[in-house]
């Protein structure tokens, strides 16, 4: 008998949440006090988001956006982006095994191959496979993550499913030298060691971090080792200009890709090696009269090798993917948070080669190039905002010469309306596209037409609430994997997110996403499998506790998924599952400058499973870790 009945878990969670809200709300009636002085100091301003490629207050953004800060990340004691995304409403991770192994995800039913992942403006999705596994992105250098749920092609080009825009940490402006060292260790010698140094000397700023994450493997065959170095230098120019240069190098062995496949006639074993180096230089210069110029150039190098061997030692396979890209992006923006216009030109050159050689039986004894290409890509775009009173109109257009799947023009028109100071209505309609992978017919891109509408409010006392309806008509949708299916789909659903104010240090954050994905030809509901995840129900729960007096904070996260499993699969797949994680942080001697902070995490507390491939890629079983960090 399973320890947890998943349907009961969901029910219990919802009942607990409702009861909690009902019981706590009346008790807060006298607790809230407006801080007029603070609002006056901050000019009632919101932290801007940059998902439209120009900083805008969230209330003037038409899309459904979630922002995660470094403080949110630290609460979770996360190692990689995967663990953070797992807590975001609408995002469901798959193959969430040992930290730094290959992971997949979907965003409101959009496959990860159609969600653009950017780090400091550089695309991480490979061009051959379209994937940017979040499990291979260390979290330590991340300052902020902006997640745009829905097509964003008018700003970013190939981004049919959405954008995950990662902004890395910048130099500490307050100190000449500051830093942090951190170490943790857990089950199966899963260890994470990090150090960072940051400061500003006159006009020169620096940020440097190094780290290693390793594990003997929480699941069979998932021993990993990841080395990471990231640096950023800034130099202030006259006239508030700034030059930023960055370098990120990653070298990782993310464990076996295929697990124990020998019993299915597959490889006896395999190993992977991935290297990535990204570098960029960026100039930001105000030109006066509200004009601002941004110019950046980048180089990106990606190498991935999958080495498989069979029972007969003579049979060995090598699959090697090499990609190099370089480019220049320039943007000219004008205006402020109320009215603005950005015009930009992106240029990139990509060379990629996907190659097989060896003596294994899967491709025969050969040395062959599966796919190779060199191409230029261009994107010209314009995005703006025009505010009249409480209404903001947000038009956008972008034309892409993709170099691979022809030209594409995307349009969008969005609007936000400030119904009350704390009640915003938003909606947008857009067209978008994504590149296909090498495994599909790449003569035409995947395309989407979308309508979204929603609201965001803190009008209800003690509660912040956001709701969004979405409808996506997707044509030529390509599933994930080496044998993809291509279908026309209509996906619609809604998402509700809520947060409460704290009560006795406790606060709740929760999200629910409903998805109805149908085949356009048959009008039948699409099921999930390992190549196509379209979960109808996804629930996120976060219970936070803060006690500043003791320097203690804790977070309990719950994640429920109902995959709607495809019947008759040859492999085992979870139909539904619930995972619970607990994260505790304690800084006992807060007054001292070098006070250590201790942290502890218990993962998958009740041994749940949420994998679309249970036998080979099952969720990591219950495991624990603890560690310490010191700032100076």
């Amino acid at each position, binding site marked *: 008998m399973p320890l947890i009945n998943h349907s009961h878990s969901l029910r219990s969670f919802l009942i607990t949440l409702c009861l909690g809200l009902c019981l706590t709300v009346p008790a807060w009636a006298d607790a809230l006090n407006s801080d007029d002085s603070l*609002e006056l100091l901050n000019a009632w301003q919101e932290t801007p988001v940059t998902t439209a490629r120009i900083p805008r207050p969230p209330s003037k953004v038409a899309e459904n956006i979630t922002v995660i800060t470094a403080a949110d990340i630290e609460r979770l004691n996360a190692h990689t982006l995967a663990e953070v995304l797992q807590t975001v409403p609408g995002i469901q991770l798959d193959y969430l095994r040992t930290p730094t192994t290959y992971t997949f995800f979907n965003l409101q039913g959009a496959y990860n191959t159609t969600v653009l992942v950017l780090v400091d403006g550089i695309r991480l999705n490979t061009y051959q496979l379209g994937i940017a596994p979040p499990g291979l992105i260390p979290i330590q250098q991340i300052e902020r993550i902006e997640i745009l749920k829905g097509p964003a092609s008018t700003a970013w080009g190939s981004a049919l499913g959405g954008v995950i825009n990662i902004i890395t940490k910048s130099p500490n402006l307050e100190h000449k030298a500051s830093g942090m060292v951190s170490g943790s260790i857990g089950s199966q010698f899963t260890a994470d060691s990090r150090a960072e140094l940051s400061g500003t000397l006159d006009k020169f700023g620096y940020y440097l971090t190094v780290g290693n994450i390793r594990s003997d493997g929480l699941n069979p065959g998932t021993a990993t080792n990841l080395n990471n170095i990231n640096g950023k230098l800034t130099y202030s120019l006259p006239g508030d200009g700034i030059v930023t240069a960055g370098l990120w190098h990653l070298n990782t062995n993310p464990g076996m890709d295929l697990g124990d496949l020998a019993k299915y006639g597959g490889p006896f074993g395999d190993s992977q090696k991935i290297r990535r180096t990204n570098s960029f230089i960026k100039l930001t210069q105000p030109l006066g009269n509200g004009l601002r110029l941004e110019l950046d150039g980048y180089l990106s190098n990606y190498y991935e090798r999958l080495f498989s061997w069979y029972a007969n030692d003579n049979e060995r396979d090598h699959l090697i993917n090499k990609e190099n890209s370089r480019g220049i992006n320039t943007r000219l923006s004008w205006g402020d948070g109320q009215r603005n216009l950005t015009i930009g030109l992106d240029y990139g050159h990509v060379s990629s080669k996907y190659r097989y050689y060896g003596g294994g039986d899967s491709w025969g004894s050969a040395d062959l190039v599966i796919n190779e290409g060199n191409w230029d890509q261009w994107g010209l775009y314009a995005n703006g905002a025009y505010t009249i009173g409480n209404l903001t109109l947000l038009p956008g257009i972008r034309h892409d010469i993709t170099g691979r799947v022809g030209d594409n023009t995307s349009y969008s028109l969005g609007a936000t309306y400030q119904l009350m100071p704390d009640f915003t209505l938003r909606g947008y309609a857009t067209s978008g596209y994504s590149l296909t992978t090498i495994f599909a017919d790449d003569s035409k891109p995947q395309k989407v037409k979308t309508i979204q509408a929603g609201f965001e409010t803190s009008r209800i006392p003690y509660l912040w609430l956001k709701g969004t309806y979405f409808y996506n008509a997707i044509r030529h949708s390509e599933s994930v994997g080496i044998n993809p299916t291509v279908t026309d789909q209509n996906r619609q659903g809604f998402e509700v997110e809520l947060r409460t104010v704290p009560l006795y*240090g406790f606060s709740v954050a929760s999200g629910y996403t409903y998805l109805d994905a149908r085949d356009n030809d048959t009008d039948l509901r699409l099921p999930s499998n390992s190549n196509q995840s379209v979960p109808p129900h996804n629930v996120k729960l976060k219970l936070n506790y803060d006690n500043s*007096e003791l320097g203690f904070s804790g977070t309990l996260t719950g994640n429920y998924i109902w995959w709607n499993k495809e019947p008759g699969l040859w492999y085992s797949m979870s139909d539904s599952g619930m995972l619970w994680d607990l994260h505790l942080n304690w800084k006992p001697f807060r007054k001292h400058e070098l006070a250590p902070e201790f942290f502890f995490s218990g993962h998958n507390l009740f041994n749940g499973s949420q994998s679309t491939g249970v036998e080979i890629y099952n969720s990591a079983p219950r495991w624990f870790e603890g560690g310490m960090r010191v700032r100076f």
Partner: protein
Amino acid sequence: MRRFILLIIALATLLPSLAQAYDVLVLQSRRDPAYDEVLKGFRFEQKSSLRMLVLSDYAEVDVVRVVREDHPRLILALGDAALKEFLKVRNTPVLAMMTLGVPSNSSAHPNLIGISMFAAPESYLTVFHNMKARRVGVIYNPAKSGWYLDQARRAARQVGIDLILREVSTGHETMTQLSGLAGKVDALWMVPDITAVTRESIEAYFQFGQANSVPVISFSGSYVNLGAAAALDVDLIALGRQADRMVSQILSGELSSSKVVFPDKAVIKTNRSVMQRLDIDPGRIVKHGN
């Protein structure tokens, strides 16, 4: 496992009640990065023991009882809500920060000492002087900012600046009073007054500045991005350090009288595009304004 989790939560919830014997009780109105900045500076130098309470974390906080039972030697209030709570305390010295409410309460509460969250009027007048502005418009509510403008008037006389004052008692009057200043001022001084500056009236200030080609000088860097020509921004970490020093002085008996002091450090932030449009040399006021 369930028992383990419950045990951790129970311990974390109950342990605060065991905290006793400390010098400073810190009450923070709510969680906010601005308060965190202040406390960074405060903790940097202070050697006293303290207890922290974040007001918004609790349904109800009986501050009088906390003070009666814990006997802190000093109370540090951060924000309007915190000050409101501590006004119930009569005998323990209170140092209030990040609130505009100190001046209006200081006469009735001799145990109250405050640090203003905005720069002294003299600092602004130096900026206007350097900009060669002789007629400076100010909109304010006498009930909220009368004390500040009294000090400003005295300082203005010394540097030969005429303050063109317009009084408001509600936020709606701001637009009318602004339009009455057209053609009569060389610069507009946006003072920290919660009646004269509201979410709804901010834009009117900058539209006035644009339409009449006069610079708007504000009290916080947040307004520079919205259209102010410049602002005197208070360094919050330095503010925390200043509070730390004052705490030591109060605890050692060197400082006891009711008063409001201004921040030690304010930094000028400028909007270069606005400055250029108005043909004002930013270097000049930055150099002389710090």
